[in-house]
């Protein structure tokens, strides 16, 4: 089936070439980082995790969001999603590949990555994160590939895939819960020490993942002969609507808890992000933009008139994807580290090489996603022919 990814029209080759150029630039910048050290990024002693880990966290969510097409189809027999489960699984694969790559580019000694497997440490959440992410990657590759191949050959997929599919559903929830547990179990970081962090991660995941999936479906309908279906897109849009509402609600709960209790340790991080603290306020416009974007997203997806208009829906999805990216990515990470445990502020701004490497990783993910989607869509087109 892989041969389907290397046959395409001019636009396909043009898009893939563009992505490969971006990947190439990112790779060259990464070589510079390997040589110099992580000092070429904007990271500091106080803010020791930044853009790479922010994107990693966000993408774990997008990967988990794929479960939102798998769950209704396999558990509740919602037949309509049968057309698009493969797209959800392939999106998950591309996202997890990006996650793992972001971790690798963030490491100070990447050549030693095997130490995580040579010296397994069950008390470390990072160890479990490695396990569940890799497990989820393999699950989706095995399931997606075999189901698609069976579909291409006109037969039912093998029986042993069923238990794997059932496992992948709670596993998807687990990858994002474990990633949240990286943060919410650390005693010195008041901004993250909240039971609602894992639920908040999941809600923003179920908004961002399906939103990206909707955009992909609309593009697929445009560039190929496969139509994912109007009903499918509308169902996904309803999922996004609920998820984004829950996400903003959870955030408002956080705001209440911090500001009604008036505990400085909890208020300071939100103050830093939304109004600035001790003269530092680089994130303020970004955070308000994120809130406004998510609010617009809520209005457009909850209102059936705007939701049913697929052009407006596309705008809503972009807006929600961006809003959740700023909130969960940059806001959560920088906000957690600032102010520092000694109550000092060293503002974190990603550097240009850092952004370049991150773009390279995103481009690589989109490369994988486009290739996989091309295979899936080609198979669907083949069957309908």
């Amino acid at each position: 089936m892989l041969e389907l990814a290397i046959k395409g029209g001019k636009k396909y080759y043009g898009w893939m070439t563009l992505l490969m150029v971006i990947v190439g630039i990112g790779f060259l910048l990464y070589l510079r980082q390997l040589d110099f050290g992580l000092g070429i990024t904007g990271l500091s002693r106080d803010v020791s995790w930044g853009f790479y880990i922010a994107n990693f966290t966000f993408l774990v969510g997008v990967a988990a969001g794929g479960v939102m097409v798998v769950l209704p189809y396999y558990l509740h027999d919602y037949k309509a999603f049968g057309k698009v489960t493969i797209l959800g699984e392939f999106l998950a694969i591309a996202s997890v590949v990006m996650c793992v790559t972001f971790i690798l580019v963030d490491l100070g000694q990447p050549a030693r990555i095997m130490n995580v497997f040579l010296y397994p440490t069950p008390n470390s959440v990072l160890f479990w994160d490695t396990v569940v992410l890799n497990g989820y990657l393999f699950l989706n590759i095995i399931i997606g590939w075999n189901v698609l191949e069976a579909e291409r050959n006109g037969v039912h997929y093998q029986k042993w895939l069923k238990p794997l599919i059932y496992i992948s559903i709670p596993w998807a929830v687990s990858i994002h819960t474990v990633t949240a547990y990286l943060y919410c179990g650390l005693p010195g970081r008041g901004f993250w020490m909240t039971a609602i962090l894992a639920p908040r991660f999941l809600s923003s995941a179920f908004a961002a993942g399906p939103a990206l999936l909707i955009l992909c479906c609309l593009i697929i309908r445009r560039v190929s002969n496969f139509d994912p279906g109007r009903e499918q897109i509308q169902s996904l849009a309803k999922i996004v609507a609920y998820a984004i509402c829950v996400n903003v609600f959870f955030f408002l709960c956080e705001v209440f808890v911090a500001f009604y209790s008036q505990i400085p340790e909890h208020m300071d991080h939100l103050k830093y992000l939304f109004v600035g603290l001790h003269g530092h306020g680089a994130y303020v416009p970004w955070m308000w933009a994120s809130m406004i974007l998510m609010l617009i997203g809520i209005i457009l997806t909850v209102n059936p008139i705007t939701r049913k208009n697929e052009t407006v829906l596309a705008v809503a999805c972009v807006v929600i994807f961006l809003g959740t990216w700023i909130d969960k990515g940059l806001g959560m990470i920088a906000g957690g580290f600032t102010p520092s445990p000694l109550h000092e502020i060293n503002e974190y701004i990603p550097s240009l090489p850092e952004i370049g490497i991150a773009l390279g990783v995103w481009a690589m993910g989109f490369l994988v996603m486009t290739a996989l989607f091309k295979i899936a869509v080609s198979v669907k087109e083949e069957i309908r022919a």
Partner: protein
Amino acid sequence: MDSSRRRILQLLGVSALALTTRPVFNAFAKEEVAAEAESVIKAGAKSLKAKQWAMVIDTRKFDSEADLEPLIEACHKIHNVPRLQNKRHEIKWLWGTHYHNAFPGKAAQFLAEKVEQRPYLVLCNHCENPPCVRACPTKATFKRESDGIVFMDFHRCIGCRFCMAACPFGARSFNFRDPRPFIAETNKEFPTRMKGVVEKCNFCAERLAVGQLPACVETSKGALAFGDLYDAKSDVRKLIRTNYTIRRKQTLGTEPSVYYIV
């Protein structure tokens, strides 16, 4: 090849024979080498021992940042801690700060003047329940069973910086670049570190192993006391018994081993 039972049995027989060649060779090889006595590993005769090393800092003995300089200089010099100009990349094992930075939960609007003016020495607290050790995915950061020091194995560290996120005291530094160009005078008896690993105070484990107290304690002229927290007769226990001491962020339950007389 026909897949009859005979063929399969022949194949199994040949495979079994092949599998035995290595052990047979090894057995023959062993006979050539003369048997050597085993080597032994032990601690040095002068090495200091404790169940949990702890430190008591009498902050009343320091008036200004200048008083802390010799201690910080002693520590950073013997451990080849680099001096980087870029504040984002700075590495510090021991440093001085203000009251409301060292003890953020205890800050007050109106404080005794002398408490407010004093500098406060901060370092890794070598907690008894360290969150950084819980976080490390490779056990590169671990709590030594022999003496309770939270130690770093720079060979194993993958530079993920999870321990830095986990530390509630901001005690850890990361090598954002090669530190060697920034070391003024290399102490050849202690290794430098490489880029991409985390480092922090090690309670001078290499000095304790040869019967010496940590460099900062020795330089402090009595302002710092060092000893076994679980030895009721040690200096640190005496000071804790007779003075009111506080520790940083006590409510988090990490059980820091560095006490402050304020």
